[in-house]
């Protein structure tokens, strides 16, 4: 009889063969050979934590609940990160965080010690088996930006690491993350719960920069982002366009380009390899990746807050002016929002300008400035001519103008032109609405006995 192990082996291999034949593009396959296979096989060497710590420039922290590796690195205040001097990243005490997250407006103490936080995990699926094997924290000290990383050398490391992280959190006044609300913080909460510890993140104010970045820069990175690709270290935000990934922002906003960065999908595999071989080299790049994420997060956050404080006039990029407009509008600062949109509307970037005008159309109408609103919508229509990707905006403009001319300007003929264009362009519910409007307008026109020819707005959608 075959022994248990060989029977088990046959089953494991069978399943694996099948999986591989159905996912030929499995990235794992390529990344398996990060180290030469000879080094990888050989297996269960006891991992020498001291040697690893030395190689990574850190130290072993021996606590009562276990040991883990701590690596500290400081960016001097006078250093540059991309085009920015590190000293410029420090967040001003009066920075308008409340603009981005109203909950933080209530927190008086937040500037005391903001801590930037980012983790690397053994997978993205979540659940009890997904471990944050590397947690990184960054904060400003007098002499610069300090990054402190905790690296697990095995499952026995985790309780001690969690305790140490808890202490760090206890001292923090604000947690700043990139997508931390959906990924980093819930992942850590699971780890604390796993080890039956209360979560020190529960009471800590949290500023997630990702939604703020989306609001400011939309789905598109500002000019200069170049051919940005690759999601932020696989932060699991899924569906987020490359334009708002942290690496895209650091290229466009900070002009910082990473060299030899570890791609996100490789990170778990590298750590597993580290566990198997004990080689610090397998994770050196992961630590660096995490450090850059933290420094860039600090820089981008400082930039965003500074920009919001300074106002649209000092912005270099129209896309940022538009983003600021949305930010102010959402925070209820309509005067500044209007200024921002007016500036953005002058942009050469047609899309930025059209979106800004559309916001202005809404803002002005709400303010009762109907004439100006109609003007903005007309500019939207002009910009949208022959630009298919702006059609949704054009439809909104036509609808707004049809309403305006019917109800405000008392010009049913003009209104009819817009409504007719809408009917032809729209489908489903919108087309149905347009038909109703047309019928009503026709009745009005008939009862007015006025049969002036309408404008050629119908042509607006022809291209």
């Amino acid at each position, binding site marked *: *009889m*075959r022994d*248990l*192990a060989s*029977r*088990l*082996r*046959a*089953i*494991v*291999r069978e399943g*694996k063969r*099948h999986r591989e*034949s159905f996912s030929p593009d499995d990235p*794992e396959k390529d990344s398996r050979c990060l180290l030469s296979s000879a080094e990888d096989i050989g*297996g*269960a060497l006891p*991992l020498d934590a001291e040697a690893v710590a030395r190689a990574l420039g850190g130290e072993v922290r021996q606590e009562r609940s276990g040991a883990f590796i701590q690596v500290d690195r400081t960016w001097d205040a006078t250093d540059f990160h991309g085009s920015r001097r590190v000293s410029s990243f420090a967040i001003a005490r009066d920075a308008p965080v409340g603009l981005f997250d109203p909950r933080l407006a209530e927190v008086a103490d937040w500037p005391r010690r903001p801590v930037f936080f980012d983790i690397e995990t*053994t*997978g*993205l*699926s*979540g*659940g*009890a*088996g997904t*471990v944050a094997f590397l947690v990184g924290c960054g904060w400003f000290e007098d002499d610069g930006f300090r990054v402190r990383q905790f690296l697990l*050398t*095995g*499952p*026995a*490391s985790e309780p001690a690491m969690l305790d140490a992280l808890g202490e760090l959190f206890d001292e923090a006044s604000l947690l700043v993350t990139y997508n931390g609300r959906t990924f980093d913080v819930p992942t850590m*909460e*699971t*780890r*604390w*719960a*796993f080890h*039956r510890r209360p979560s020190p993140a529960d009471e800590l104010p949290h500023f997630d920069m990702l939604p703020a970045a989306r609001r400011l820069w939309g789905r598109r990175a500002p000019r200069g982002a170049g051919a940005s690709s690759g999601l932020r270290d696989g932060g699991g935000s899924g569906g987020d366009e490359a334009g708002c990934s942290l690496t895209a922002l650091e290229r466009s906003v900070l002009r910082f380009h990473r060299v030899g960065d570890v791609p996100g999908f490789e990170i*778990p*595999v590298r*750590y*597993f390899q580290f*566990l*198997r071989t004990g080689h610090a080299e397998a994770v050196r790049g992961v630590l660096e990746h995490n450090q850059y994420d933290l420094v860039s997060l600090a820089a981008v956050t400082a930039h965003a807050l500074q920009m919001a404080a300074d106002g649209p006039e000092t912005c270099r990029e129209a896309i940022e002016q538009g983003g600021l407009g949305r930010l102010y509008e959402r925070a209820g600062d309509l005067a500044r929002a209007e200024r921002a949109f007016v500036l953005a509307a002058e942009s050469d970037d047609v899309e930025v300008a059209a979106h800004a005008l559309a916001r202005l159309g809404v803002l002005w109408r709400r303010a009762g400035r109907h004439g100006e609103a109609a003007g903005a919508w007309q500019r939207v229509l002009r910009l949208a001519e022959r630009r298919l990707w702006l059609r949704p905006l054009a439809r909104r403009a036509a609808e707004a103008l049809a309403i305006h001319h019917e109800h405000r300007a008392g010009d049913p003929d003009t209104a009819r032109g817009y409504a007719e264009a809408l009917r032809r362009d729209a489908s489903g519910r919108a087309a149905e609405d347009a038909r109703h409007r047309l019928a009503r307008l026709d009745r009005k026109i008939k009862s007015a006995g006025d049969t002036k020819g309408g404008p050629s707005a119908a042509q607006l959608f022809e291209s």
Partner: protein
Amino acid sequence: MAAMSSLPALTGDKDQSLAALLARLEAQHDAAAREGDEDPHVTAVRKLPAVAAEFAPFPASLDPRLVQAFGARGIAQPYTHQAEAIDHALGGRDVVIVTPTASGKTLCYNVPVLQEILRDPSSRALYLFPTKALAQDQLAELHQMASLVGAEGGGDIGVFTYDGDTPQDARRAIRTRAHVVLSNPDMVHSGILPHHPRWAKLFENLKFVVIDELHAYRGVFGSHLANIIRRLHRICRHYGSSPTFICSSATIANPRDLAERLIGREFALVDRNGAPRGEKYFLFVNPPVVVPQLGIRRSYLAETRRVAIEFLKRGLQLIVFAQSRLSTEILTTYLKDAFHGPPGAADVIRGYRGGYLPLRRREIERGLRSGEVRCVVSTSALELGIDIGALDVAVMAGYPGTIAATWQRAGRAGRRSGRSAAVFVASSAPIDQFVVRHPEYFFDASPEHALVNPDNLHILLDHVKCAAFELPFTDEEGFGTINVQEVLAVLAEDGFVQPVDGQWQWTHESYPADAVSLRSVTSDNFVVVDTTDGERVIGETDFTSGPSTLHEKAIYIVEGRLFQVDRFDFEGRKAYVSSVECDYYTDAITYTKVTILETFEEGPEGPRGPGSQGSGSQGSANQGAGSGIGRDVGALAAGLEEDARAEGRAPGADERALGTQRRTPNADAHVPPVPSAQRPVPALKAHGEVHVVSRVVGFKKIKFYTNENVGSGELDLPEQQMHTTSYWLTIPREILAGLPYGTADKRDGVIGLAHAMRNVAPLLLMCDAHDLGLSVDGVSLEGGSRMGGVARGEAPELSAEPVVFLYDNYPGGIGFSEPLYGMHEALIDRTRELIDGCPCQSGCPSCVGPEGATGPLAKSVASHLLELLAAPEVPA
């Protein structure tokens, strides 16, 4: 077609009209018996007398608020079995309760759970039901109890279902607020255990785990559940809790063994039912033979319709169980057609099956309880504990497959007082014909054993991965009965885990629970894509049966609609079909080759003793159990012999398992007794590990209704291979040589024998016919056999010593082979009874296969062979 008639109102003395009808049928049965009718229409009428209730007081320690709440529901005292179960549970003893339908099992677990929550509001309980619908059903009752208790000052007791339908935004609240979580094994497997930190509050305070419908967890599903429970134990240990298990089961032969094997702990058994029962009649009906030469009987569906109409016309409320979704729809149509009335009146007759929307199902259930619905035609969907009230009559169209399921379906009729009836209408399937002609087999036998094999390596391996993901194994930890350290070492070779710090860390990016389907051994399957009008998926088929049902030109049937397979993409696991109109279906011809890899045991020298080599897979059975179980739970897969041994009886005492007495069939007359000198003593029975290679080589087209073979085709499909376990019977050279028949007839006899054995084996094993594969001397009868034997000319010559393999039709095996080996004698006896007791002249689909397919002498040769094989063994 029956005359159109309208239904009488549901008034008058139902008891009396039922009694009148039963009396008539009983008289018919008695008359047939007097006249010596060999093939009576009504083959059995049994009267089960009424039983009075037995009460016992609630335990003195019970919270007065709980006593009050039950008082408010009219329950002053529990039945004896309820009181006993509550006592065990509150005493912290794991308990399994065997309860017939409608005996108040929910009280057995709700009382201890609510009592504990009242005592300590932080307490939590987890209820597991095999389906979502059952959890929903229980939710209502538990809600009511919880609010009654709450009204008595018990505070707010949170009761929630947590399953695939639970909205995402409600989940967080449930995780922290629910005192009682009602879920199912699939959800626990993929949604709760892998996320246990989020459920920390539940696991830290888990006092009770309730597993309802325990008997549903057998075979593959049960083997998965046992591993899920192993994982649950680990998580509970991690959070410092040790819940008490309360299980309830329908009547099966081994409820305690099953519970102990699934949960891995020692159980107390409560099986003395204290609930009252009214008088109940049980009738067996065999549709009359209409074509005697071919043994063809009147359609059992038509017969069921006639029976049902008899009861309906007398104003009785009934449930009709059909064997498939299709026959459910057909019967529903028949019965609706038979009655007319004002518009909507036909709604008093309803169908019920999986696939109906929940709202419709709830409406039908309500209608049954209120009496508005007079008749429901259902698949097994209503067999489990959905509350539909107590009906007057249960009619079963076809044998439900097991004694246990038959009693459970019969239990759907019957009140605590007053008369009720259950009727079994036999189809022409061999099992049906065996049961209907041997009523004593059913009435006097204990029900079946539910078997599981938690150490099936395929299943085990998947769950070890899940467990390693959930909580790193330590290098000293066990997992069930197998040496998990060895399993982990193999997983480490492929990078799934890595030994670090004395633990096995999960080092894989995957979420292993996603790759496991609890209802089968592998989650691999084929999907069926209908391309008639666009492309849409209309069905799926498990990996094993894909090639034989979805090959090109196969006819694929969904709810009576026919589709033809246009293209079968084996690699892509898809079959593209389009709608067709035709009057035939297809049956694949599969060649199967079975190679013995290792023989675990062989006889006739009798079962192994405790010290013998034993079976490989159970070899390490006892190490690591360590939970102080006195009985040999670890070796239960070994089945019935272990059972017998544990209870101090002689090995080989299969009678208990099968319940029938070993009788010498009265067919001795036409087979001369075998001279003792001729009696051989070589190996007859064996079980072990085998390699099965099967390939679909062709198919036949078979006409509906007439079953004529109207064409065939050849196919070239890839081989499928698996390692599994098998029981096999070797027909000794001496016996075969000594038979006074020609080679071709002997071959027909062996094939006929195999055909009959294959149909009897599931009866003994309490498994689905699908669970077993058959191969004779290395060449398959599959495909042909389901519809009755292999066509002449397809079967090759037999060797001098042919072997009949009955193998577990799942990779790795799920524990049928060893018990089957233990039941070898019973298998031979029952097969002999089936063949000798069959009234056909020379073979029919109900025994050795239809004449014409098996050869004229197949029946005689098979009978003769069995005579020799069943001869008492030489004393050891």
